[in-house]
């Protein structure tokens, strides 16, 4: 594919959920012309490889607020974007396997409640009412929020793709953004494998490759790509409503509308994107162990397939949103770790707002790209990561 023009108001690198939502908010506000470039196929990145979990239970108020706004956006998605994302609010059930883990859930629960959400702390029996067949002694308690849920990521991508194009944004697939053209210390254009375009503003929404792209622009950023694996089982009749998560080992799983159990568990991999996205026996066996130990009756359920994607991790667990002070015109919308899908609607709106010159309602100390320069100080950390 090639570019329809040679001059754009905004060029967005990455046609994942974040890039497309950013394009949407920009076009809605009349900014333009907007082009989104992606070197892969649609949904090739994390947006086509995730677990579809959407939760509002977080350690920090800032993340909870973004998540709440995003839940509202996903509830509206079907009527606004023409595709059914099957956002099913079956709840998120956090499991604690030790007293210490339970204490942490209690702390989270207090923050979540103080943001006006009706999370509940559960004893082992109540946990058993949500998830039948948990092995005796595996759980000492849990926390539950009924309005969390799961969705199908793909139709969200299709709906946005079609909508942004209908709103006049261009989406150029198969174009690798290779570098940034800088003039007078600020962004002047974007070099791609499909040609160079002139633009005063570039949004780095490259997901797991955002660190790579920032570095191509000469910016030193702390983003680290980490490989995360996930699997799906054979489809079963419905037996599980909530997404079940266990922070102690990063286990998460839910049952999709199609009946498959989809989930993962933390298995450390070497950082970086160099090794591609193979699936490993180490993950398959670890996930099998975790599921069977927690729910013995899953023993005969077959693993149907596994796949892999990249998290885009930041040192403090918060995304990076806003213009990079070192390179005016270069806007970050990245660093979403393992939760970019659920934050995308709200976070992308903030990224777009920066470009539209609106007053940001986020604390730059928490989300701005300059925060890392100060080193790890007394800043808040969003530590409730899974997978």
């Amino acid at each position, binding site marked *: 594919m090639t570019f329809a023009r040679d001059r754009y108001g905004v060029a967005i690198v990455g046609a994942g959920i974040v890039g497309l939502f950013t394009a949407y908010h920009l076009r809605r506000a009349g900014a333009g012309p907007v082009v989104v470039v992606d070197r892969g196929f649609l949904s090739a990145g994390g947006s086509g490889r995730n677990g579809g979990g959407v939760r509002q239970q977080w350690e920090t108020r800032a993340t909870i607020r973004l998540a709440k706004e995003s839940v509202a956006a996903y509830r509206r998605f079907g009527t606004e974007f023409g595709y059914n994302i099957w956002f099913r609010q079956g709840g998120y059930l956090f499991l604690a396997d030790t007293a210490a883990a339970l204490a942490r859930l209690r702390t989270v629960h207090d923050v979540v409640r103080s943001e006006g959400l009706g999370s509940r702390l559960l004893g082992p029996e109540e946990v058993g009412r949500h998830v039948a067949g948990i092995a005796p002694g595996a759980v000492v308690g849990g926390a539950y929020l009924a309005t969390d849920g799961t969705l199908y990521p793909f139709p969200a991508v299709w709906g946005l793709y079609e909508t942004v194009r209908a709103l006049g944004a261009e989406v150029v697939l198969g174009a690798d953004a290779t570098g940034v053209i800088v003039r007078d210390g600020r962004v002047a254009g974007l070099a791609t494998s499909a040609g160079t375009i002139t633009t005063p503003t570039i949004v780095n929404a490259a997901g797991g490759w955002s660190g790579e792209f920032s570095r191509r622009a000469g910016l030193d950023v702390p983003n680290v790509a980490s490989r995360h694996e996930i699997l799906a089982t054979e489809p079963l009749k419905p037996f599980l409503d909530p997404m079940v998560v266990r922070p102690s080992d990063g286990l998460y799983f839910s049952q999709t509308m199609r009946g498959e159990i989809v989930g993962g568990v933390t298995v450390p991999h070497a950082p970086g994107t160099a090794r591609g996205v193979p699936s490993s*026996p180490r993950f398959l066996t670890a996930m099998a162990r975790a599921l069977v130990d927690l729910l013995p009756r899953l023993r*005969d359920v077959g693993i149907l397939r596994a796949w892999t994607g990249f998290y885009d991790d930041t040192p403090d667990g918060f995304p990076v949103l806003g213009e990079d002070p070192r390179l005016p015109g270069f806007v970050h919308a990245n660093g979403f770790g393992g939760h970019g899908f659920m934050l995308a609607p709200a976070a992308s709106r903030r990224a777009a707002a920066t470009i539209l010159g609106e007053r940001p309602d986020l604390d730059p100390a928490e989300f701005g790209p300059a925060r890392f320069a100060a080193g790890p100080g007394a800043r808040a950390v969003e530590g409730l990561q899974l997978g």
Partner: protein
Amino acid sequence: MRRFRFGRGARSAPDGATILEALTDARLPSVVRSVRYHRPRAPFCGTGECAGCLVRVNGRPNVRACQTLVRDGDRIDAGNAVPSPRFDLLGVLDLAFPHGIDTLRGFRRPRFAVRAYQRVVRRLAGYGRLPPVTASPPPPPEPRDLEGRLAIVGAGPSGLAAARRAIALGVRPIVIDRGAIGDDLVGADRLGRTAATVLLPPRPGRDEAATLLGFDANGAGVRVRAGAVLLATGSYDAPLLFEGNDRPGVVTAELALRLLRRPLRPPFRRAVIVGGGARALELVTSLGDRTSAVVSAGEIPPELVRAASERAVPLYPRSIVARAHGRSSVRAITIARRGSGEDLELSCDAVVLAHRRLPHHPLLFQAGAEMRWEPRARAYYPTLGPGGATTVPRLFAAGSVAFVAPEAARASGEAAAELALGGDPAVPTAWPTPPVDEAWGADYVTELLGLPRRGKWVACPCEDVLLEEVEAAVARGYRGLEVVKRYTGLGTGLCQGRYCVPEALAVLAALEGRPPEAVGYLTQRPPVVPTPLGALAPFAGAFGQEVVE
């Protein structure tokens, strides 16, 4: 004799019979309904890959009837139907939605009804039910763990020849096959009725063993570590796209032949055989007067003409299989004569697909072996050095998965075994390749897509994805197999795309106007076939920390 219960009825079966064989009595058992439209389905492949024979055995969901032996006292239930697969009330869905149910864009409005839609759709989806929660689940079957110098996957002609060669060289090979392995193979560790589903090759430049993981017929985990791995995984009967191709009675040659071998009453008397090559000849010979016609896309070779005329079987060369009729079992097919466009209805009680073989290559992809598109066969095969070395260290391939002709299968197996064990076999620069009937190629598909349609054309039976949906995706600008898969769900079902992707490649090539190799392919990921969690769990922690490179 084994005594078991099927639904409410008491049944018996001869020793050593699979559940499928035990349930086949002059009629293919209909044990499952399809996921979206609750169309009646019956076994299709006979090799444990399609979604046509899933039953529940003693509470275990999604058991493949064709792969599982009947045991005394088994309680077997059909799945995904109310009250039974033959009279499933939800079958009305199929009739009520002739153009399919749009789960991508439908069910969005009104917003207050969304929760109710979700509940209904959820209940319709999925195959098996989980076993009930019990206080003390039976102990998991003991895993098996083997080590050796050479592991051979596949005990067909090339795999067995390779095993014998290894034994002759003083090595005890580990031989793994999804089916039974004859006990005449002495001197090998035989893992029959075992599926090898995950392959981790040794990393380049490292002195480490390759690891295979899998499971046996009891759901027990199996791990094999070997200095070298030889993949002789063979080939399988290709699917064919036509209207009603998912109807009970449309079966692969493999399943038809299996159902003839046993002392049971074969489930067909008037089978239409589709294909014009050696496989079709094998069927005509084996089925004898149970054959009602042979239909082929191209010309029919003299040997097949002779075999057919000896049995007074009519031949229909230069024809397109357009439509299968019948709901709970096929009763006729319509063929379109190529060129003339004339339609012909042939009555039958089975349609046997014997037109094309495809390589069983997922383990090769998984291992990261370089694969090449073979334009004549329209399939991917491994790039091999002489003797069968793949591009992955200590990974070899032989036989039909390596695009070797049947008459050279044994020799290719022997050579690969010798090479794998460090020998230097004398090999030809290239093995003869299997015959390919190119009449089933791109032109056939283009003509097929132009035929009138009356009912559903199911492009992916596992997920009930319709041809219309594939066409709509392309029309909306979604291009390439990877994206169309994600858009429609095609290829994401129980068979992992084995019975839809080959045809989808041809369809997308035609719709997108580019060659099939440009349409892309699905990444083949582990496991090759669904592998029980309980089979893999025992090996957790056995793979150490990944070395940071």
